């Protein structure tokens, strides 16, 4: 297990390096630049801006300079949010995204796993069908429909939760967390159900049943651990994506999160901001997947034993 981990760790910087290189050159190939606007820049302004932001010289030399800065931990300036650096933007906007993401993840895990278990244990009943129908709706209902619906119901009609805004750990988190978590909850429910049904048909469960164990013991002590394996493997990318925010949820609920940077930096050709978001997301994905593999090793003895 240890040598397996070590081998995985060695690959992390290599993967990141490839990711950075590809993104850097790909972004420069997109038509239009960070300073183009519907108003022509007065003569000399483009040159001055290019120089100010270190975008002069060939793309290769810019790449070299970028890497040097990057190694020192400097992600460069934002070309759109002119008063802030990329480092500052990430440190300002990542915490709200993480807080919202974790809240959404907890809500969706609890709701999703519970619904999935109920469905599996009462499989092919009305309860199962209705839960799974809800899950399908959860996956397919776009958040720009679901979010405003939540706002209208809980804020405009019932007046129990605020419409929008961000105040740290507060009531303001609930609606955006539900909106953000819904599709994840639905995925968790379906994965749990499938995993549970598969496990329940395994021989060792039949053995346990024939030994006369109670259904409760069978489910909780023997089946649950294995049934959650698919959920755990989905958890890696889920954590990475849910904690880096969502453009739509942030817009609807006015959350100062990082999600919109992923989209808007690309639209604005905010070169350094794009790099910053890609590096952050790439690292998160790699780390989460690694963590999932470790957890997997504990849940499923077959993993990591092959070497």
């Amino acid at each position, binding site marked *: 297990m240890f040598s397996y981990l070590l081998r995985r760790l060695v690959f992390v910087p290599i993967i990141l390096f490839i990711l950075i290189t590809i993104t850097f050159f790909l972004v420069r190939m997109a038509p239009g630049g960070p300073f183009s606007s519907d108003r*022509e820049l007065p003569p*000399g302004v483009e040159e*001055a801006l290019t120089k*100010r932001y270190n975008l002069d010289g060939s793309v290769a030399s810019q790449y070299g300079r970028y890497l040097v800065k990057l190694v020192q931990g400097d992600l460069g300036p934002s070309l759109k949010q002119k008063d802030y650096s990329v480092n500052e*933007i990430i440190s300002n906007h990542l915490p709200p995204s993480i807080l919202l993401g974790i809240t959404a993840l907890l809500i969706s895990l609890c709701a999703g796993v519970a619904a999935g278990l109920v469905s599996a244990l009462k499989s092919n009943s009305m309860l199962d069908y209705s839960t799974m129908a809800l899950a399908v709706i959860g996956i397919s209902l776009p958040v720009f429909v679901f979010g*405003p619906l939540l706002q209208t119901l809980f804020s405009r009609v019932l007046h129990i939760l605020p419409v929008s805004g961000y105040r740290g750990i507060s009531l303001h988190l609930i609606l955006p967390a539900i909106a953000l978590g819904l599709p994840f909850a639905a995925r968790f429910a379906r994965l749990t159900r499938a995993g549970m049904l598969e496990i329940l048909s395994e021989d060792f469960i039949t053995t346990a049943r024939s030994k006369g164990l109670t259904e409760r013991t069978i489910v909780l002590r023997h089946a649950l651990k294995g049934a959650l394996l698919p959920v755990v493997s989905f958890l890696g990318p889920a954590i990475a994506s849910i904690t880096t925010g969502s453009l739509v949820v942030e*817009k*609807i609920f*006015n959350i100062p999160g990082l999600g919109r940077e992923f989209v808007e930096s690309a639209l604005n050709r905010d070169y350094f901001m794009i790099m910053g978001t890609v590096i952050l997301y790439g690292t998160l994905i790699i780390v989460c997947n690694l963590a999932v593999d470790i957890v997997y090793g504990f849940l499923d003895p077959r993993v990591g034993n092959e070497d």
Partner: protein
Amino acid sequence: MNYLQYIFNFSVIASLCLFGTVSATADGVPTSMPEWKAAYVPEGEVWKYTEQHLTFNNGTDPETLDPHLMTGLPEMRLAEALFEGLVTYDPSDLSPRPGVAENWGVSDDGLIYTFHLREDAKWSDGKTVTAHYFLSSWKRGLDPVNRYINLFFPIAGAENYSKGELTDFGEVGIHVKDSHTLEVTLHAPCPYFLDLVAFPTYYPVRVDLIEKFNEKWTRQENIIGNGPFVLKEWSPREQIIFEKNPHYWDRDFVKLEMVTALPISDLNTAYKLFQDDKLHWMPALPVARIEELKRNPDYYVYPMLGSYFYRFNVTQPPFDDVRVRKAFCLATDRVEICNELLKGGEQPSNHFCPPVAGYEPIEGLKHDIVAARNLLAAAGYGKDKIEFPKLEIIYNTSEGHKMIAEAISQQWKQNLGIDMGTRNMEWKVYLDNQNNLDYTISRSSWIGDYADPSTFFSIFRTDDGNNRTGWSCRVYDELLDTVSVTLDRKERNKIFNELERLLVEQECPVLPIYDYVNKGLIKESVLGWEPNIRDVHPLKYIWRE
């Protein structure tokens, strides 16, 4: 609007400032103030018992609070609270009103402006605002990272200095006569110069602060301004909070104690907050709900200094032929677009420059299908003739632009029998295509920077970076040269009409569609807020009742 009169007749301004005063009461202390200003002193006592806290939706987080780097209206709305130029806009008609300058004089030839700064103008750290600060700020503004640098170019030597052709800043026409007198020399008369001086790029900034903190000088802990408000909090994407500036020279006149600007880009969310009374003003509306919003008593709509139009690429067939361009203009029914499609009060337009500063547009080419068909046939297109090539209108991705492009394409199909495709493009790609003349017809818009028609017409000068049609006309360029040295308002407007005629009647490199309007919601409790063509609403004059 007696706009130009103010500029050229110093005595009018002087009489307004010095003699045309009435007694008014603010905070119970009798003061004397000019009539135009006294209109913004609340009557009665109600406002004193109302919380003087205004919350409005600015729609986005500002890209910067640095007046020399900003480009958009949301930024300028905030800058106007934090800084004050020599001259400020009248909240109603935008004519120049005293700001840091108590008064000013203009030489007979219109070349030398002498600004007399008030003694009591202070920065928010208590230091006096002297003429030196303006000199150093404008010098900084001439650094070409300022996208509005060209607004300084009427000043003698400014353009040369910014290009490095002039190295001695002393030769630029900005001179400190004494600590409270600033003399500005222009290289040619500029009838709208005072309007420019009120623009954010002319605001004074603390260069000492900028040298100390670099781009961090705009943070709440560092920034020092001279405007009616100070920055209390800037939480990016959450909110911006201003508090009344206790050092502001006109503090007794400022009624609002606190202002919150929200960056909500989802306008449906903003509307919910407005309904909950958590928002008092929203200058942008969710377009899909316009019918419902129009019935709201808080709804407002008024003309704006902006034009929505299509550009033709005149360098390629078929639109290199003026007859074809004209035919397309004649075959477009703007009234249908505005009344059936947009329904938001937009004004169908056959002109490029909206009415501004006394300028009245010409009638232009009206909807005339027969004339359009004849022109097209004369150009050799039609039955038994050349088949019209399959072309596209390009527009930047947006529901509104799509709707209009499809409707116009439908009209052309009906009226001319021509199939014109439509294609949406991501913003930067669209700009790239437009810039490189890689299009046939392109959606466009133009918003005026100052209240003078030249802010519109100048963009179609040959080879102007904003021309983007490939169109070049010697007569047009010469008329632009003439108008730039013409001071008489009537004479100017005549020339502008001739420019317009060339643009939309004779040569038609553009197809005007409608004049923009400002639409929004504002609570009845907000007073001192005036509609105007630039959508400029100085917070200094606003209060709540």
